């Protein structure tokens, strides 16, 4: 599966990056390709390109503040608060796998 995502937490200093890493590692451990864009105090990093979004099977938006989703129109989007991915990133990926295979 090609997974892309965006993370954005309230202060934009720590959780944004920690959870991006957790999702990335869980996705790759499960054999998927994954790119997570982070939106923090310093702005957006690892920005998703149009091609990457187009080719993705699923978009994960993991956030505690508003994220502009217009880029992801027409894509399967999994929209979750930061705590869901922090608590159990493996289970998140497993749930996504299941849903996509339904």
């Amino acid at each position: 599966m090609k997974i892309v995502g965006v993370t954005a937490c309230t202060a934009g200093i720590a959780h944004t990056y920690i959870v991006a890493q957790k999702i990335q590692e869980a996705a790759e451990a499960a054999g998927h390709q994954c790119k997570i864009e982070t939106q923090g105090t310093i702005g957006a990093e690892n920005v998703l390109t149009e091609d990457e979004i187009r080719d993705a099977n699923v978009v994960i938006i993991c956030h505690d503040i508003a994220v502009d989703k217009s880029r992801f129109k027409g894509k399967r989007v999994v929209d979750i608060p930061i705590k869901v991915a922090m608590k159990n990133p493996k289970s998140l990926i497993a749930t996504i796998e299941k849903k996509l295979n339904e």
Partner: protein
Amino acid sequence: MELKELLDEDIIELNLKATTKDEVLHELSKLLLAHGYIDDVEGFVADIYAREAEGITGMGDHIAIPHGISPHAKKIGIAIGRTSSMVEWESYDDEPVNLIFLFCVYGDENSGTYTTKLQAEAELARRLGSAGVIDQLQHVKSKGELVDVLTK
């Protein structure tokens, strides 16, 4: 900026005396004050609590990442502490913590150095999300080893 440059052993304490969250925040903030990172302990701690109110900072695996943008922060850095026993802290996995990373950050500034330092902090935060790093952090025996685990 290299992550190694951001980490400062002067503000790392592997033997905190603190036994509660409040004591941890004060003990680490006093370290920050002593080394010129902040100009006022109570003001800085209040700003950290403000961020605490917005969402929990116990990220699981006995690690806490308190932080907050504070006008009392004069330098960007990160105080790191380890307590000898577990400390109650609101956590995603409902477990207490013994490793605390207190991010010291001030607000908006239009300078290249500011951005580079925040980027280094973001990179550090990313490392804290890595399962491999988390596993090793609990076993470090020295400040040097801690810095190595975080920066390799």
